């Protein structure tokens, strides 16, 4: 049942981490979220530049472990993944289709399910597009300028990663609740933020903020400012520079960030649960509806909605893999 949220959430640990081991005979060390994307400029000593011959030999041959160790490690990894990822995923679909395909589609075309799907898409669209703008601006500021308090800004961007989603939701209750900071002001102007679309969008915006910025910062830092400087010295305006030089350079990283941002926006449960008010057919997103239906013993309906989220996770996974390949091609000339 927690599948649909846990898949995108695993990205938390490494929003941009794409550490991998090349299959060639030399290990390429890649920066994991650090400033350097390319291994050659990473702080770790590169195997090609330092160390004596023995060391190099050891590094050069990562397959020196005995045969059984390798088999054991691979078996453990596969078993772990099967039990914790593949099996639950299969079970979600098995439950969803347990009463046949008609029951499945009946569950999905229920007005409450449609409303939840609609709300989820709307909220994701709002939060992803806003985060796209803010993320690019924040990453731009951090990567291209030097200013006092820059590290504080970076930490602040990471804050939603380290704060429990429930707290993220409660923050907005404290701000926009009827008893909250802006409560009286909002009430007197007849604006409903909490327990309505704006509140849900805000909470989602908050928890998904780091994805775009985090994907862009290392990329933009690595690229430096020379190309922009060149463009400007050739007479390009600020906007021209951005759309002709910066954007083409970061587009794959940006897509990557947007993808993860979207996955989390659609899957978010905790923060949204706090600010939603759980009004049926109105303020329930898909993850909330999954829980509600489950608690009403409507297992087929619950897992039908869950299967949609799971499918989203799978699509995200595939798109992410393709994008990573794209990003890697850019790194390796």
């Amino acid at each position, binding site marked *: 049942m927690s599948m649909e949220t846990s898949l995108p959430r695993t990205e938390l640990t490494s929003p941009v981490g794409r550490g991998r081991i090349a299959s060639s005979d030399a290990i390429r060390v890649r920066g994991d979220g650090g400033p350097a994307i390319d291994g050659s400029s990473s702080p770790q000593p590169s195997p090609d530049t330092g160390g004596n011959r023995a060391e190099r030999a050891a590094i050069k041959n990562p397959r020196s472990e005995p045969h059984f160790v390798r088999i054991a490690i691979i078996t453990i990894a596969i078993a772990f993944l099967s039990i914790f990822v593949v099996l639950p995923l299969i079970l979600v679909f098995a439950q969803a289709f347990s009463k046949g395909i008609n029951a499945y589609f009946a569950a999905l075309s229920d007005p409450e399910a449609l409303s939840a799907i609609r709300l989820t898409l709307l909220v994701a669209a709002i939060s992803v597009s806003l985060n796209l703008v803010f993320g690019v601006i924040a990453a731009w500021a951090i990567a291209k300028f030097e200013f006092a308090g820059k590290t504080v800004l970076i930490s602040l961007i990471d804050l939603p990663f380290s704060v429990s989603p429930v707290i993220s939701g409660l923050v907005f209750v404290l701000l926009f*609740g009827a*008893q909250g900071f802006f409560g009286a002001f909002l009430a007197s102007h007849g604006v409903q933020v909490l327990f309505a679309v704006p509140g849900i969008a805000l909470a989602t915006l908050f928890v998904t903020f780091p994805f775009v910025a985090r994907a862009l910062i290392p990329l933009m830092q690595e690229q430096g400012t020379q190309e922009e400087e060149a463009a400007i010295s050739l007479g390009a305006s600020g906007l021209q520079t951005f759309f002709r030089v910066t954007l083409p350079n970061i587009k794959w990283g940006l897509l990557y960030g947007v993808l993860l941002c979207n996955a989390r926006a659609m899957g978010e449960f905790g923060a949204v649960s706090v600010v939603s008010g759980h*009004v049926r057919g109105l303020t329930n997103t898909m993850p909330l509806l999954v829980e509600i239906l489950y608690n009403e013993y409507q297992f087929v309906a619950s897992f039908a909605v869950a299967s949609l989220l799971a499918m989203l996770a799978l699509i995200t996974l595939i798109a992410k893999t393709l994008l990573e390949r794209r990003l890697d091609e850019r790194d390796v000339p």
Partner: protein
Amino acid sequence: MHRLFLAAAALLWAGSAIAADITLLNVSYDPTRELYTDFNKAFAAAYQKETGKSVEIRQSHGGSGAQARSVIDGLQADVVTLALAYDIDAIAAKGLIGADWQKRLPQNASPYTSTIVFLVRKGNPKAIKDWDDLIKPGVDVITPNPKTSGGARWNYLAAWGFAQKKYGSAEKAKQFVADLYKNVPVLDTGARGATVTFVERGVGDVLLAWENEAYLALREFGADKFEIVAPKLSILAEPPVAVVDTVVEKKGTRAVAETYLKYWYSKEGQEIAARNSYRPRDPQIAKAYEKSFASVELFTIDDVFGGWTKAQKEHFAEGGIFDQIYKN
């Protein structure tokens, strides 16, 4: 492919166009989902017949305390139908509902009542007959968190009331309840969560449950898996209903909201309550459904605890008796 996508999109957005003449929001507690599904349908039909206007009632369900909190924080509920008077008092204390709310409708504004019973696994393998059996070693008791769940507070008070009557002092009652909570492996936030823990996940030997929730579990999962055990003595739970004054004034829905709640006191309303295993107030309907409820001697919260405000302060407030016993 494109056309398919467009069709799906059209289907998605088309659904949003349903509009009734009047929309009410009923913020309720956890186990009333099925009850209000029935009741809302019946009321909408009756109202349409009476006035020619269509009314749609939206529902929100959750732990009673948490739901009250949401209304205080600005959830625009026309009516609240919560698990206990204290939660509505909390909303009234913020000025959203008049302080006299419980006098506005008959019978303490509680059109249906319930009590706390035990749900055990088929064959009652741990031989649970009454409250005393719950504190035996090796018996796992499932009950939600009294801090967030109304049902859990009724559970707690029912146990306390039993022990006080049987052992004669508050001190001994405290010891009894402390022993009981030692047997509780997990505290869910709401009554429905606790039911799912017991029924679905198979945790625990006995579930302290609303009578209506216990019967619902029997209906949903079959009487071949669970049994209801009625203790000899339990508490009369009165889940109250109220119109949220500030919201209905703003939305102009006071008349409908009041009609909606009054419908509970009609024969149809009482019948719906009884069918959903809530004890009806109407003597005739109660008589007709006598067999659907266990015979349990009931005490009220006023008798034993001097009302909700006092009980809440003594037992469930920060640093209250529940905090003291659950810490140890």
